[in-house]
């Protein structure tokens, strides 16, 4: 028989073995290992040896078969109870298990066809339902908010505003602000981190007054993470980002080095 085997015909070595067992009408519990091995090898030799990945799996099985074949020639081993161990036992179990899943796969395939005849419906939420908004529960909404807190918030808002309107500068009329320099921010963050080695990103940002400053602070932190001066952690999504100064990092940053960032 000229076996021009398409490897794709078989799912793998176990599939090929099952095919041979089937073809030869062999009792799976009493595989004539010499014959089967010979046939198996014939197939493997006829295979397209281009695809090494696939062929290697078939070769592993070939080795197993040869191993079983040689052990069949030796006096049988005995297990703890003194029963003879059939060298084929493990292979038979594997084949049976695999055969079972193959059968289940066919069973599932049938069900797939049947269930495929069910059609579903996309969600259609009526506009009246989609538009619905829960009534506001003011008690829950204001839970934990006291007048004292409200006053604090007001104070903070006013404070921030006062900070922004720098009384001295504003008295000079229009003054162009110095751009925020990355090198300065780097120094600042390094300084800050050395004083408090574990700190929150938010607390760092809170020291920034203007948007450009926040951006540059962020860039500085990114740079320090990149070179390993800072490590970064976040407990869960949207949680505060924790930064930690890494004292073991030996990269030296002199002021002149920092200026290259500007």
């Amino acid at each position: 028989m000229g076996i021009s085997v398409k490897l794709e015909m078989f799912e793998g070595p176990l599939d090929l073995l099952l095919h041979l067992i089937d073809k030869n009408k062999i009792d799976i519990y009493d595989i004539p290992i010499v014959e089967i091995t010979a046939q198996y090898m014939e197939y493997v030799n006829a295979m397209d040896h281009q695809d090494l990945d696939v062929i290697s799996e078939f070769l592993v099985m070939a080795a197993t078969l040869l191993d079983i074949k040689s052990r069949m020639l030796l006096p049988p081993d005995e297990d703890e109870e003194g029963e003879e161990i059939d060298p084929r036992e493990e292979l038979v179990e594997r084949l049976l298990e695999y055969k079972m899943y193959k059968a289940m796969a066919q069973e599932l395939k049938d069900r797939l066809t049947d269930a495929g005849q069910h059609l579903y419906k996309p969600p259609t939420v009526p506009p009246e339902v989609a538009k619905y908004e829960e009534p506001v529960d003011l008690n829950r909404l204001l839970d934990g908010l006291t007048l004292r807190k409200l006053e604090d918030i007001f104070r903070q808002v006013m404070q921030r505003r006062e900070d922004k309107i720098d009384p001295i500068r504003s008295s000079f009329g229009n003054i162009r602000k110095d751009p925020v320099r990355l090198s300065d921010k780097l120094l600042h963050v390094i300084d800050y981190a050395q004083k408090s080695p574990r700190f929150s990103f938010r607390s760092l940002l809170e020291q920034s007054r203007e948007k450009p400053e926040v951006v540059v602070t962020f860039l500085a932190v990114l740079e320090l993470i990149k070179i390993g001066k800072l490590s970064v952690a976040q407990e869960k999504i949207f949680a505060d980002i924790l930064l930690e100064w890494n004292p073991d990092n030996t990269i030296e940053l002199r002021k002149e080095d920092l200026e290259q960032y500007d």
Partner: protein
Amino acid sequence: MINPQTGVEEVELERLEAAIEAILFTMGNSVELSKIAAAIEHDEETTRKIIRNLMLKYDRADRGIKILELEGSYQLCTKEEYFEQLIRVASQPKRQALTETMLETLSIIAYKQPITRIEIEKIRGVKSDHAVNRLIEYGLIEEVGRLDAPGRPILFATTEEFLRSFGISSLGDLPQASPEMVEEFKEEAEEEIEVET
């Protein structure tokens, strides 16, 4: 047995009704009579009669959906009386919370009322319409008039609900912030100037 309304054999009618239900269900949107007729392999007139008959069945109390007729098309939809239950399933519970922005805005309005949106935005340094709108929606602030200035901007103030929610009887009971604080700011500013000069 022939069904007198539709002229279709009863057993066959049941099967056709079921097929129409399946069609309308799966399509979701409205389906033209002609399409339904073609699908069940009956003429349009008979199909229309079958659908009419089916619509009556949907009127039964144990059905939550009904058939709508829309210019010769048909569509399944839920009965309005079950919207309440639908809302419990369909609407994700939105956690209502006062955001930072809303808290700040509320505090400014509480202490500076009546106040325009522009003034609030000047103090906060950012747009605040969304926060103002939400606070109105929550009944914590309301429009109380218009400022006699160009554009006649709306003035906002806290509501009675605001007082009730915080358990105070009048705005006079708000923790006193303003005068000292203003004084404080003034002094700080003056000090700074002195240091500089």
